[in-house]
């Protein structure tokens, strides 16, 4: 993939994540902040499908943005063909791993398996 395409995704995910995290924080403020973090309330959030979908989207956006950022930092730190390939594929694998693990948590909680 061209670097400009990757950076368009990088900037796009940042903007979208800022908007969705703002919604997420505002949702916390609809009730008392401490109250919103109570176990039952957190579970209730996951069971509310639109909210769970938004959390899933935030997870994907932040994972894509964060791991691309990490890739860029590591590429600037050291150079070499093998190292750069390892960094790129390593970051991609870590990104998919985190999304899979986070999605598993969201889906299991949504389905009442937790």
């Amino acid at each position, binding site marked *: 993939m*061209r*670097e*400009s395409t990757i*950076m*368009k995704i990088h900037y796009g995910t940042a903007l979208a994540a800022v908007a969705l995290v703002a919604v997420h924080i505002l949702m916390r403020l609809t009730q008392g902040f401490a109250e919103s973090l109570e176990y039952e309330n957190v579970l209730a959030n996951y069971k509310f499908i639109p909210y769970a979908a938004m959390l899933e989207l935030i997870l994907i956006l932040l994972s894509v943005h964060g791991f691309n950022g990490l890739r*860029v930092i590591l*590429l*600037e730190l050291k*150079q070499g063909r093998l190292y*750069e390939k390892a960094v790129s594929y390593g970051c991609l694998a870590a990104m998919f791993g985190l999304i899979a693990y986070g999605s598993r948590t969201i889906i299991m909680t949504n389905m009442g398996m937790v």
Partner: protein
Amino acid sequence: MAQVSHIADEQASSPLSSSKSVTLKISRYNPDHDDVGKFMEFTVPYEKWTTVLEAILEVKKHFDHSVAVRYSCRQATCGSCGMMINGKPRLACFTKISELNSNVITVEPMNNFPVIRDLAVKFERLFDTHQKIKPYLIRDDTELETDEREFLQSPEEVEQYIQFANCIKCGLCNSACPTMATDSSFVGPQALAQAYRYVADSRDKGKDSRLKIIDESHGIWRCHFAGSCSQVCPKGVDPAMGIQFLRGYLLGFRS
């Protein structure tokens, strides 16, 4: 013959006589023999108009002729005498001692360049990256037919790129760039500014091929927009601005 006599006179001349003097600390390092560099101090007289290059040449003439320094035109045109002067990349011929407001002038080789010896550095990486971005007009009809006219441009079209054409390849921008310090494959502000110079030229038709060259993992996207390249340019070129314009092309904001 007259010219030879003039050079002989210059070499035999006595040290500058002035009431003012400055301590010149020159970095000495020969990678073939030395593990670490060291500084040698010289007390050099100076006048209001004395440049750092003239002070270094004064040291070479009267104290230590083995100091290695690259220079040529002495008028900020050739771009040969770039060095770190009191911690900032500057042209030695374009920096007056009096404007530094310091009794101690420290001169070191430019950062982000391998040292040949003392103040002289290798320019291979700069020239390679400069060449990589195809620093010439690209078009199919380069050869003019007899009945054709030259490629005319309006003043507005010239305005788009003319400041970037002032680049003298001195390397000060690359020396000041923080990304160049860590990323040995980064194309650098000098080459990126030159890429913009040709992309913005209305006579050029090589925009797509040039954008493709800089749109790679160690290309234009590794610039952090620190802006230090533009701060140190002795010719008023603004590479940071050129880089932002190039990003505009790649993001689709400019065409």
